[in-house]
């Protein structure tokens, strides 16, 4: 099936598509038997933006990515990627995307360089062009020294870099990164983060699923929160944080075993939901609707009760707090 892949410059790509979103999902449903993985999910990602897809395990993140990458067909609804409908033009979708799963999918027996050459040839580069492209990518991804070794012996970070590099042998329109930093050390994680930014600067749209709220916060232009197969919140990280309504006051008693006494002393400043979950906690987070005034009041009450503090501070809500307030259960696992 001979066909050509557009390798426009980023500017040309943007101009030709006008204001069309790079990914448009509307009312997509998908069930596996009795399990309704997606129950009418809708969202869109603008061109050259990073969309963070956030949600606990089993929320439907991976199913969404699989539908967008043509691995699964939606039961109903429409999904359009880079102008191609996943149902009617799946070949077009496949020419426009690159997808990496949680596990780096490479030929384990081949070296990093051979993998890059293989993917280059699979994407339609001639043999010599594929070799040249592999050289470039090895250099760009700082893998020259490891290029000759079999991928089997790579560290997690290197493996992930080769994995992503293999998806960039030609220029994709939309990149799906399914939990790209799961299991990586902080340094490798930073490398992946820098890469996401680099892709975005190239005019490439990135869909990033993650369980790490921090990651979505740092990288995403927009975030959607998925729970139980639907989008339950959408917006920038700041907008989502604003939804939780103001700051939090974080209190760390010097003696963590005195947290129950701390709760007692704070009285009506501690919401019932927080008080119910103090078992084993080493700090206490309470809403601070009045900001500094709430902190001062808390300090006064704790002082009266004679509770020594290691730390007390106001902080803006994290996406963890957002998640908790929207879903009623904590994110992560």
């Amino acid at each position: 099936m001979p066909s050509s892949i557009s390798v426009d410059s980023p500017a040309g790509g943007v101009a030709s598509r006008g204001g069309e979103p790079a990914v448009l999902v509307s009312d997509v449903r998908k069930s596996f038997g009795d399990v309704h993985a997606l129950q009418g999910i809708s969202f869109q990602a603008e061109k050259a933006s990073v969309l963070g897809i956030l949600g606990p395990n089993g929320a439907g993140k991976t199913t969404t990515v699989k539908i967008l990458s043509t691995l699964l067909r939606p039961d109903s609804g429409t999904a359009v990627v880079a102008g191609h409908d996943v149902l009617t033009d799946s070949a077009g979708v496949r020419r426009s995307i690159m997808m990496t799963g949680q596990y780096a999918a490479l030929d384990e027996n081949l070296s990093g360089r051979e993998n890059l050459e293989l993917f280059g040839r699979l994407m339609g580069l001639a043999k010599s062009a594929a070799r040249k492209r592999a050289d470039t990518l090895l250099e760009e991804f700082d893998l020259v020294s490891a290029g000759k070794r079999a991928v089997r012996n790579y560290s997690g970070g290197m493996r992930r870099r080769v994995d992503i590099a293999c998806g960039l042998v030609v220029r994709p329109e939309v990149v799906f990164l399914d939990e790209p930093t799961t299991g990586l050390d902080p340094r490798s994680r930073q490398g992946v983060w820098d890469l996401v930014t680099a892709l975005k600067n190239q005019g490439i749209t990135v869909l990033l699923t993650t369980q790490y709220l921090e990651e979505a916060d740092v990288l995403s232009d927009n975030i959607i929160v998925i729970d139980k197969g639907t989008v339950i919140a959408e917006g920038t990280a700041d907008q989502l944080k604003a939804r939780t309504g103001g700051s939090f006051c974080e209190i760390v008693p010097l003696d963590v075993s005195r947290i129950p006494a701390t709760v007692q002393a704070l009285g009506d400043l501690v919401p019932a939901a927080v008080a119910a979950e103090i078992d084993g906690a080493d700090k206490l987070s309470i809403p601070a609707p009045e900001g500094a005034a709430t902190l001062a009041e808390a300090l006064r009450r704790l002082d009266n009760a004679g509770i020594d503090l290691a730390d007390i501070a106001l902080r803006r809500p994290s996406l963890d707090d957002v998640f908790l307030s929207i879903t009623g259960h904590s994110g992560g696992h």
Partner: protein
Amino acid sequence: MSVSAPAASTLFAELPEVRPSSFAQWRALTGRIVRTMATKGELVVAVLTPLVVTVAFYLPLRYVMKVQGIDYAQYVMPIVVLQTMAMTMMSNAQLAAFEALTGLSTRLQTMPIGSLVPLMSRICAGLVRSVVSLIATVGYGYLIGFRFTGGWLQALAFCGFALAVGIVLTLGADALGSLTKNPEALSQALTLPILIFGMMSTGFVPEASFPAWVRPFARNQPISQFAHTLSDMAAGHLSWAGTWVSLVWLGGLAILFLPLAVWASVRRS
């Protein structure tokens, strides 16, 4: 080791025109498996295994068989050839299972690659292995006195039929591998049928050597039939009467395994 992200400006500089074609993809995917087989010693194993099998059966059994009036070199080579096809089947099952397990198969499905290309490339790489193995096996056969006595046409039919059996078995193995995604369990699970069908066949020893109760199975099971057909082709006795049962077995297995392999390989999940 530093971890740096590529500079945005140079990442896609000077990218040449691309033209994905199924044929080029098939070549790239097949080439990579064959290269791995050649460099990781798998082809050496493919060449040495039939030698071990040949020696293991020919040396102890040739005099016993001579007493019964059987030229054992001529008798045993067809089943040794079939044994090598079973080895290819085994290695293809592993390959398919490994590619499904690591997610490579899934990833290829998200790329603009013809949906049958990955399966075709695995089968063709298996065929390369089978051909190498077959050449080696026939070579060993000639060393111990096996001969094609029916002319080159029947000799070609011998090779063609052996490879066809290999391909059909490989298709079934590929389906199993893609579906189970478990190389270890699969190699154990396949060992048993290979042993049963190999040892309980009339390819190693004549039917009369089996206990009476197992003779109907030994006589009629497909591997015995295949061995007989190959034996006829080697001796130049190829006839419809001696071949049609084999062809029915082979056709039946192909009708079962081909759609199964295609389904297992192209299905998306």
